[in-house]
């Protein structure tokens, strides 16, 4: 085994992830090479330090604040959905009434009527297109698969 190959396998050796034959070859090289022995000792020290690291547990007050944050978001998400539905319905109704009034009003020119109709139709097409894109993205998003694990 060369020093280069030794270096490539050093982390896996320390993590106990080498197969028996690889480990035997690794240890043979280790016994014969001082530079690699020193290198491994340094890497081992770092690995042990990393293994000692743990995330801190928040205090009670911090946890309460954290949970309140999550709870508020859960409640607000329902609010946002209702608000969005309300806005969409109101806008659709308003647009419908405006078009209806315009078509019936002979004082408004035909060009303006066509223009406003095109504007509203454009907005609808863009909205549907964005909605479709979101739904397609969601279908291929790894997230939607991962939540099923």
């Amino acid at each position: 085994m060369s020093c280069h190959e030794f270096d490539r396998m050093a982390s896996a050796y320390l993590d106990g992830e080498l197969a028996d034959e690889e480990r035997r070859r690794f240890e043979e090289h280790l016994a014969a090479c001082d530079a690699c022995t020193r290198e491994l000792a340094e890497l081992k020290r770092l690995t042990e330090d990393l293994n000692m690291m743990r995330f801190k547990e928040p205090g009670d007050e911090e946890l309460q604040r954290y949970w309140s944050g999550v709870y508020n978001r859960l409640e607000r998400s329902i609010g946002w959905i209702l608000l969005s539905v309300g806005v969409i319905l109101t806008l659709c109704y308003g647009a419908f009434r405006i078009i209806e009034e315009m078509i019936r009003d002979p004082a408004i020119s035909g060009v303006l009527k066509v223009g406003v109709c095109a504007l509203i139709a454009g907005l609808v097409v863009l909205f549907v297109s964005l909605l479709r894109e979101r739904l397609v993205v969601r279908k291929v998003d790894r997230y939607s698969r991962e939540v099923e694990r």
Partner: protein
Amino acid sequence: MNENDTVLLERCQAGDKEAFGPIVRKYAGRASGTACLLLGCPHEAGDASQEAFVRAWRNIRRFDTRSPFYPWYSAILRNVCKSRLRRRARRHTVTLTEGHRDPSNDSDPVMLAERNERKDRLWHAVMRLSAPFREIILMKHFQDMSYKEIAAALDIPIGTVMSRLHSARQALRETLAGEGS
């Protein structure tokens, strides 16, 4: 998963929001630390992990209560953090391979238990690694995952896990050596 978690999660599936509280409290520390490492930004960690809990709640009916909660939640959290990193990259404030933490900023909270100077230095060195390196250090050293589990989670060959983890550790050694440790 312990029996208490199973009961609480079944209540969550029945729509009981209050039952979600003990679950969130139990995993909040680990979740915030994980988000911190994935994002390379302690200040965004709380917000991202809370967002992941909200997503977990919305999908709670799809969760199998016979399996442990944290790995399932962790997959969601990972996606939340990836989305945020992608958004950052699009805004050109940071790329997927670059952290954006200023190591000289001492006000950054260190999210470690039993801190000392040596661990703090190591933590700051970890935070300066690139996103893929931070992620693999997180999985190996904070989540105690085997190479096989990491390979499955990242959808990469075991050989890549071996070389990426080794490169991450070597990068850490270089950073620490550069600081004169």
